């Protein structure tokens, strides 16, 4: 239970920082974040007794046990050590950031991201299910992206963040694939099972696939060559982020993963070669690049890359002792590198620059910070009596040993010594250039001074840790390290000693050579380094970064453009043609494959009246299609004719409620189309009417397509309707509608009860569509020739204007006098009818949908009668409120079932005796139907009003345009 709390607490804190703390106070957010991290630290610390000596804490929450996907959290010694690192350094970083962040920055956002990152990192560490692990892995990539781009008005921050996300995102994807393969090999996604089946994995033919994919994930995260270049670019982040994510925790996730899967994957030749080559080249290249950096954080970033390479190299060796050294060095590196980053942040904060060419002689101004940085650098260089020395000695000892005899193995001691010398050189350079020499001359902030004490405290604490671990290792870190080692290695735990003095042996000599050689190297190159450009010679213009950018431009710009221009089209006609053709082919091919053969047509039992109605309908439909291009109004009228015959058909085939719904929809559609017709451009007489051959062939092709689609649909429907109705789900609904849904109108019961969840989704879609139409129409610009008032209005207004006794608008008022009175009187009648349709819907034709549209028609009539201004002066219609009420009503009805312990949308029905009206059905589905009703009214009215408002709006646009026209 503590584990769940531990993982959730940072996320809760993160949400709280965003949602609750909308203050300008940076202290409040920092205090909250500090409290959260401190509680997490304490929670982790109290778990120690249960993970000591190979103990484990485990928590299983079943989610999809059929697929092996469970929320499993587990903590062993290694996870505990890492969790302590994450929470402990997290707390120090929060403390530091409290003073580092400036007043102008949106501080709550920073702490929110930082806490969320901490939660994800703890998630990686504590995951007991490998899929869960990859989810948290992705989360760290995302929060790293957000934190790097925290100063998002800075281009370097944006680019660095994007690069980091791209690289680690690709890695995360590969990791997921690799873990899926691993799960497939083992047959379980449970981490404990995976770790226990190392032999099975290594013998499996898919071992190499899984290994390569997982390694890509781990190496991208830990910035190993050739994926290292994102880390220096990520230094555009605020320094607390660099200290926390990019030295102490997130980049350690990669090596953490390698250690975690070390028992299951390591020890093979492939492992040694892949991990070893990456590790050794990173170790040496990182150290070499670090020497030539002019940016303080750049130097530290490359040094981090190099140290991560060291850990990777150790893990590649496959020997238990090397694994111990790797775990130990992970801890040591986190302590000294985080403190160095914080020191670099203080220098940046106090002087305003991180460029080593401009910094010098700062020891006079920053004596305490300088001393602390010196100790931390010494630990980084591997000077005796500091923690870096011990783990480096262990590394040298392992480098000398022969593990898998190969060239790689034989050159390792020399590479290790050389990298050691480089690291001494850059550590020395960091200290010498920044803190010694003449006083600085051109600093952006001329008078640097010591920062507030609590800003320095995290560095003091970490440096103290370096010293304590360096002097009395077995008394300080010893027992914790031992629990971690046991939890990873199990029975293979080797004998190791954390002593400082092992006598004069090869590793010590290598250390001495590295120290002396590094110092000599720095002395020789000092003058060159003080002036040279940023970056190492030879490699300055050649880097992963350039290749990365090239690839990105090619893929996301050139290829995307090519695809768009070759496969895409912006014309409506080809798109529609493709959709129709694809639809036809999909239907035809699948029917053909299923052995479909059309039946011969047979005319028998034909009702001549019904046939005649159909003939009229078909005639109207054909006429509408024929007239659609040039006589829109005629086409619309004919469409109305086809619609009414459809309604008659529904009645004839005993579907009265369909008929009612179709009728009201028909009416609203006609008005909607008419509203739109006003804004369509007029027919242009100037268009060349001579038809080219290509246009003719295109029309012929479209005609053929239309005929085939229509004929196909006809054959299809005919085949289905002449089949005997199979005893399918329909009879179930007929049986159960009254007994379980409490309604006799089966269609309505299906809509609001049996398939209530579908209806819920559909009304949500309707709401979205209405809002989209509304939003699109707000920016609507009609064709220039339809902006003007229609001809009829101009004539009528001119008539009014000519006669002094008439005022503007009199003509239309006279014309509409009688109809408008009737239309106004119809309002209550239609509203009553809507209520009637709604109430009887559960048992007889009607229901929320039809009633909603009827109500919308009542509103529409008022607009028709008096115009927008008249109607809105008298009626306050708030379509958005109607829609909101409808959605809430429907959802609340569904959720009401929870209160009584039933699943979502369970309904209850009974009859209530109402005075004067009699028995009224009162199913809870009625409330749901009320939601449907309200939403339909809102959505329909919203669309109608949005269209109707265009003429008022255009009136205003015309008014604005008129003065402009005069100016021209």
């Amino acid at each position: 239970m503590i584990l769940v709390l531990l993982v959730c607490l940072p996320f809760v804190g993160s949400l709280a920082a965003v949602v609750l703390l909308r203050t300008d106070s940076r202290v409040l957010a920092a205090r909250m974040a500090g409290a959260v991290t401190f509680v997490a630290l304490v929670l982790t610390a109290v778990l120690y007794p249960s993970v000591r000596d190979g103990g484990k804490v485990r928590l299983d929450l079943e989610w999809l046990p059929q697929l092996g996907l469970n929320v499993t959290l587990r903590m062993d010694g290694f996870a505990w050590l890492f969790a302590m690192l994450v929470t402990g350094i997290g707390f120090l970083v929060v403390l530091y950031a409290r003073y580092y962040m400036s007043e102008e920055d949106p501080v709550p956002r920073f702490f929110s991201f930082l806490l969320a990152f901490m939660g994800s990192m703890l998630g990686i560490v504590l995951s007991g299910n490998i899929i869960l692990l990859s989810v948290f892995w992705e989360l760290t990539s995302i929060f790293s992206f957000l934190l790097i781009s925290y100063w998002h008005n800075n281009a370097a921050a944006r680019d660095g963040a994007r690069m980091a996300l791209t690289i680690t995102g690709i890695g995360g994807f590969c990791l997921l694939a690799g873990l899926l393969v691993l799960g497939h090999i083992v047959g379980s996604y449970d981490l404990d099972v995976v770790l226990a089946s190392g032999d099975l994995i290594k013998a499996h033919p898919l071992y190499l696939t899984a290994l390569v994919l997982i390694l890509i994930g781990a190496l991208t995260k830990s910035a190993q060559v050739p994926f290292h270049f994102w880390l220096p670019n990520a230094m555009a982040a605020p320094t607390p982020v660099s200290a926390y994510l990019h030295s102490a925790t997130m980049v350690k996730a990669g090596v953490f993963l390698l250690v975690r899967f070390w028992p299951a994957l390591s020890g093979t030749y492939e492992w040694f070669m892949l991990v070893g080559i990456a590790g050794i080249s990173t170790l040496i290249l990182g150290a070499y690049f670090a020497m030539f950096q002019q940016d303080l954080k750049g130097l530290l970033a490359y040094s981090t890359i190099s140290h991560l390479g060291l850990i990777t190299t150790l893990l590649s060796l496959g020997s238990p002792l090397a694994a111990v050294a790797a775990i130990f060095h992970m801890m040591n590196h986190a302590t000294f590198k985080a403190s160095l980053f914080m020191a670099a942040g203080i220098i940046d904060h106090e002087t305003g620059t991180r460029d080593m060419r401009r910094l010098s002689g700062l020891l006079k101004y920053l004596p305490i910070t300088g001393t602390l940085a010196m100790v931390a650098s010494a630990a980084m260089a591997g000077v005796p009596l500091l923690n870096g020395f011990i783990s480096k000695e262990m590394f040298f000892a392992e480098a000398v040993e022969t593990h898998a005899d190969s060239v790689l193995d034989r050159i390792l001691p020399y590479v290790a010594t050389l990298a050691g010398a480089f690291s001494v050189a850059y550590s020395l350079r960091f200290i010498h250039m920044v803190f010694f020499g003449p006083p600085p001359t051109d600093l952006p902030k001329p008078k640097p001074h010591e920062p507030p004490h609590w800003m320095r405290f995290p560095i003091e604490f970490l440096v103290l840790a370096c010293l304590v671990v360096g002097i009395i290792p077995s008394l300080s870190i010893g027992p914790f390290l031992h629990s971690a080692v046991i939890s990873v290695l199990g029975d293979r735990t080797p004998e190791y000693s954390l002593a400082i003095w092992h006598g004069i042996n090869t590793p010590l000599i290598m250390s001495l050579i590295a120290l002396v050689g590094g110092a000599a190297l720095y002395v020789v190159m000092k003058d060159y380094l003080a002036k040279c450009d940023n970056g190492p010679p030879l490699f300055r213009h050649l880097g992963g970064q350039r290749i990365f950018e090239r690839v990105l431009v090619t893929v996301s710009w050139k290829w995307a453009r090519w695809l768009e221009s070759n496969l895409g089209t912006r014309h409506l006609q080809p798109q529609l043609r493709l959709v129709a053709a694809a639809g036809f082919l999909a239907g035809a091919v699948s029917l053909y494959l299923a052995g479909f053969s059309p039946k011969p047509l047979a005319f028998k039992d034909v009702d001549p009246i019904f046939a005649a109605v159909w003939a009229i309908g078909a005639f109207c439909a054909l006429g509408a299609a024929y007239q659609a291009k040039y006589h829109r109004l005629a086409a619309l009228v004919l469409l109305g004719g086809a619609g009414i015959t459809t309604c008659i058909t529904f009645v004839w085939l005993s579907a009265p409620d369909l008929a009612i719904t179709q009728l009201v929809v028909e009416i609203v559609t006609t008005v909607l189309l008419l509203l739109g017709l006003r804004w369509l451009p007029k027919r242009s007489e100037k268009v060349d009417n001579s038809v080219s051959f290509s246009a003719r062939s295109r029309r012929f092709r479209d005609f053929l397509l239309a005929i085939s689609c229509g004929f196909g649909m006809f054959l299809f429907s005919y085949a289905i309707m002449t089949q005997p109705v199979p005893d399918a789900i329909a009879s179930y609904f007929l049986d159960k509608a009254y007994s379980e849904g409490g309604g006799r109108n089966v269609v309505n019961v299906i809509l609001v009860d049996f398939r209530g969840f579908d209806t819920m989704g559909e009304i949500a879609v309707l709401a979205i569509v209405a809002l989209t139409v509304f939003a699109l129409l707000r920016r609507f610009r009609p064709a220039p020739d339809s902006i003007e008032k229609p001809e009829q209005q101009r004539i009528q207004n001119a008539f009014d204007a000519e006669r002094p006794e008439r005022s503007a608008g009199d003509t239309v008022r006279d014309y509409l006098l009688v109809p408008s009175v009737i239309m106004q009187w119809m309002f209550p009648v239609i509203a009553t009818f809507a209520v009637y349709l709604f109430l009887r819907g559960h048992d007889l034709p009607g229901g929320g949908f039809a009633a909603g549209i009827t109500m919308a028609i009542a509103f529409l009539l008022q607009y028709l009668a008096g115009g927008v201004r008249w109607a809105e002066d008298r009626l306050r219609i708030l379509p958005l409120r109607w829609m909101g009420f409808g959605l809430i009503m429907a959802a609340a009805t569904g959720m009401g079932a929870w209160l009584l312990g039933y699943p979502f949308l369970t309904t209850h029905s009974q009859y209530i005796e109402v005075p004067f009206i009699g028995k009224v059905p009162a199913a809870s589905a009625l409330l749901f139907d009320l939601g449907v009703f309200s939403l339909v009214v809102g959505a329909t009215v919203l669309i109608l009003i949005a269209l109707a408002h265009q003429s008022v709006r255009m009136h205003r646009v015309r008014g604005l345009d008129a003065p402009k026209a005069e100016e021209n």
Partner: protein
Amino acid sequence: MSHTILSWAMVFAQICLVLAMALAALRMARGPRAQDRVLALDTLYVNSMLLLMVFGIRTGKVIYFEASLVIGMLGFVATVALAKFLMRGEVIE
């Protein structure tokens, strides 16, 4: 006897109504003026309403009158909108 008369009357009524609908549809297609088309649509609506009434009488079910009620009460809305469109050039000002 009365049943026979009634059934013949209904057949006659249906034939007449369908004929009227066909003529209305013809007018809708041919025009010549837009006003003729709108009027024809209204005629088609009224005839449909009556056809549904006759259908209801023939089957003896009250439930089909509902649709006639809807046409009777709301069918004029489409006609009004079309007429307004012809008169003013737009439906809602």
